[in-house]
């Protein structure tokens, strides 16, 4: 305090009065002794806070604190456990009967009923509402009637036929196709229930969402500044240890990192790449790592004549020394990928990617020679410039030049959207960099979108009907365990085809202040708010 005053006096000629008046507010309140205080968590400005409209990690972190879903992902082991649901039953993975726990109320006092879930999901699925979570409802029977093929037409229905209320605490969900991992899907934030009050004025609701979760809004969303939530006394589930959480909006990670160093912000979930080298020294034991679901790979597009031969693709993948790049470029903050799905999902087996992901320069060269070499002998690796990918792409290029004797250059596109547009138009951009993180903890959350012929992120034209039918067979299983077996079978098809070269598994590189303890950042890069406490 004294130092501050001196500083103010130095700066005075200019700002005397204002500075001194403001000084009194400078004290850090909040985290008092003995826990149960206030924690601040750095986020980026969310796009929306209406759960059906949230598909970004900052918004997800906030709504996760405000709502309790039917199921949730257990932060430690990524298993699916029941949250606001008493039980969820199915015999065929097609019709699911969901019974709610007693006693859950919205923050405005209303009881949470089966109808609230049904209304919220119908709202999310109704095309004209344009909700970001719209596609998550597409497995429910009757979704198509709410989302006609002609985008300008008014949908024929407002309610999905697959949702039926049995009584106030029970409802059934019928899917159009059986899906064994439905319980996992329902852990995603778009499936949270909204109270009746929400639909009266959804814009107003978005500014201060009323949820059914462990925290409730304190005031409304202060755009670009912060969102404050406080523990909700009427919450029936596991209660959080802290009383208040302040989500502080930072636009630039460097600013947030400076605040973390100065102990001004309690948790930063992703330390910026440029600070990775010094972070350990800056933060000491406040520097932490935890597994994240992010997965980086190199797409080897089948539409490109260079990569039509799977042996060529395999040779390229084998010639990459992932561990070396992890150590040198990423300073050990990532892991070399040894599989086509992230290790955080149930069903991942270490080393399941087989030979294709094991570095063997000599064998790679032999395979490439046996396959007649790389057509034209030169390779381009395209990446988006705004994501800090240049260094490792160049490193991979160097390895390929050295190990395979081919030419290789990295090529930058300004943004991922540009890269995607070109890939979709099947422009020759060579191999390209892709990233993925899960929506829900299941192998399916990687296999379907990335490798199935119709996958939403399969921009590289991989199309293997046997793979698709094996994944589909997994979906049809009556249990999650049965499904995982089929998914693992499907992964082995990828091992033969090598549609992409898996590169790295991400980790959360996070830091926290000395005022908090028990900080854990889960696989989706969200802070576990039930565990964290102040010292």
């Amino acid at each position, binding site marked *: 305090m004294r130092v501050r005053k001196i500083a103010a006096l130095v700066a005075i000629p200019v700002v005397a009065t204002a500075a001194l008046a403001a000084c009194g507010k400078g004290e850090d309140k909040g985290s008092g002794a003995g826990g149960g205080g206030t924690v601040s968590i750095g986020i980026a400005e969310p796009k929306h806070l209406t759960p059906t409209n949230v598909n970004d990690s900052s918004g997800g972190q906030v709504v996760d604190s405000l709502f309790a879903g039917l199921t949730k992902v257990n932060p430690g082991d990524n298993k699916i456990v029941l949250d606001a649901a008493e039980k969820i039953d199915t015999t065929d993975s097609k019709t699911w009967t969901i019974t709610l726990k007693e006693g859950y109320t919205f923050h405005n006092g209303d009881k949470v009923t089966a109808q609230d879930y049904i209304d919220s999901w119908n709202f999310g699925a109704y095309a004209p509402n344009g909700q970001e979570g719209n596609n998550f409802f597409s497995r429910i029977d009757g979704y198509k009637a709410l989302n006609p093929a002609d985008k300008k037409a008014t949908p024929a229905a407002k309610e999905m036929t697959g949702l039926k209320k049995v009584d106030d605490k029970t409802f059934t969900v019928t899917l159009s196709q059986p899906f064994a991992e439905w319980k996992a899907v329902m852990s995603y934030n778009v499936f949270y229930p909204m109270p009746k009050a929400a639909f009266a004025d959804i814009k107003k609701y978005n500014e201060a969402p009323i949820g059914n979760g462990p925290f409730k809004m304190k005031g409304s969303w202060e755009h670009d*500044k912060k969102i404050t939530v406080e523990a909700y006394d009427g919450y029936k589930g596991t209660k959080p240890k802290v009383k208040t959480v302040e989500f502080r909006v930072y*636009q630039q990670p460097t600013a947030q990192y400076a605040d973390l160093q100065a102990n001004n912000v309690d948790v930063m979930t992703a330390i910026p790449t440029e600070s990775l080298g010094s972070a350990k020294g800056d933060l000491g034991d406040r520097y932490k790592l935890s597994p994240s679901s992010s997965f980086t790979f190199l797409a080897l597009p089948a539409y490109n004549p260079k990569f039509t031969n799977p042996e060529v693709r395999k040779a390229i993948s084998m010639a990459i020394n992932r561990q070396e790049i992890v150590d040198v470029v990423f300073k050990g903050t990532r892991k070399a990928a040894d599989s086509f799905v992230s290790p955080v999902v149930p069903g991942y087996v270490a080393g399941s990617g087989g030979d294709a992901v094991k570095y063997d320069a000599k064998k790679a060269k032999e395979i490439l020679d046996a396959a007649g070499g790389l057509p034209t002998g030169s390779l381009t690796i395209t990446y988006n410039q705004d994501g800090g990918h240049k260094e490792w792409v160049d490193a991979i290029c160097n390895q390929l030049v050295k190990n395979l004797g081919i030419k290789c250059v990295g090529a930058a596109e300004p943004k991922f*959207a540009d890269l995607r*547009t070109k890939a979709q138009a099947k422009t020759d951009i060579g191999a390209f960099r892709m990233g993925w993180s899960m929506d829900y903890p299941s192998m399916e959350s990687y296999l379907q979108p990335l490798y199935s012929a119709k996958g939403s992120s399969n921009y590289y034209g991989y199309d293997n009907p046997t793979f698709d039918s094996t994944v589909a067979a997994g979906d049809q299983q009556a249990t999650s365990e049965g499904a995982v077996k089929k998914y693992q079978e499907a992964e082995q098809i990828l091992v033969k085809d090598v549609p992409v070269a898996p590169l790295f598994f991400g980790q959360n590189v996070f830091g926290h202040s000395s005022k908090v303890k028990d900080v854990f950042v889960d696989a989706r890069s969200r802070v576990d708010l039930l565990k964290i406490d102040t010292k």
Partner: protein
Amino acid sequence: MLRYIIRRLLQMVLAFFGTTLIVYYMMFQASGDPIQALAGEKPVNEAVRAKLTAEYHLDEPFLVRYWYYVKGLLTGDLGNSLSGGRPIAEVLAERWPTTANLALYAFIFVVILGVGAGVIAGIRRGGIFDNTTLLLTLVVIGIPSFVLGLTLQLGLGVKAGIFPVTYMEERDGQFGLILPGFILGSLALATAVRLTRTSVAENLRADYVRTAKAKGLAKRRITIVHVLRNSLIPVVTFLGIEIGNLMGGAIITEGIFNVQGVGFELKKAIDIEDGPMVVSIVSILVVIYLLANLLVDILYAVLDPRIRYE
């Protein structure tokens, strides 16, 4: 004078439409897929795509879209942000006071420290003070402002704890804006020192000063009334234009200190290719800049009666 102002205002209308057209073109035509850019790397679902396409007329020809935009502008509707859908006017109304506040500090630094030091250096030309300021100003002009900003943030904020590391209005109040204000004003401050010094030094050797001295006027009176008034004409030009610059918000400074001003918003909008937001902010900046220029030209005539506009 009045005719001059009216003529200038008419020119401004032309300049305004010219610049908005160019910015609008660059934002919407040059970016490949604004909807995907918003979503980052995850695919965008059809419902969102259809809704945004309809709302922002993304499927219509460029000139039609520009017409919609101008129509909105003329009726006082800036439209909604592409990301999040908040009314742009509302966002800007929240951001501008912060930027104005920050700009005020920067401006005060420039005027008091910059012009003040310049006058002293000009009067004591060749002295220690003059040489020291020369060196210091060269250093400031030579260092890019983000380096200066990050260095002072680390030194005075993170390490020494004298100034807040980032700005949080309710915690720091006005105190939090002093360091960012200084960084923001530093370049202009250095320039103001150099400019004032030269101008003062030149005027001190002018004939009218010698005459005044010969007349036996007090030195203080000569400096304050005669030399300063004449020396400040170029400085005022510079300061006027600088107001325009400062009000534009400082992308770099506001980013470093997390000050939620216009520059902060503009940077965010550029990053996620939020076209409507970028175009609106830039359009308003153009107006501010043009007005600042007009103000400077009018001030000329006030300060120097020899200048007449017809």
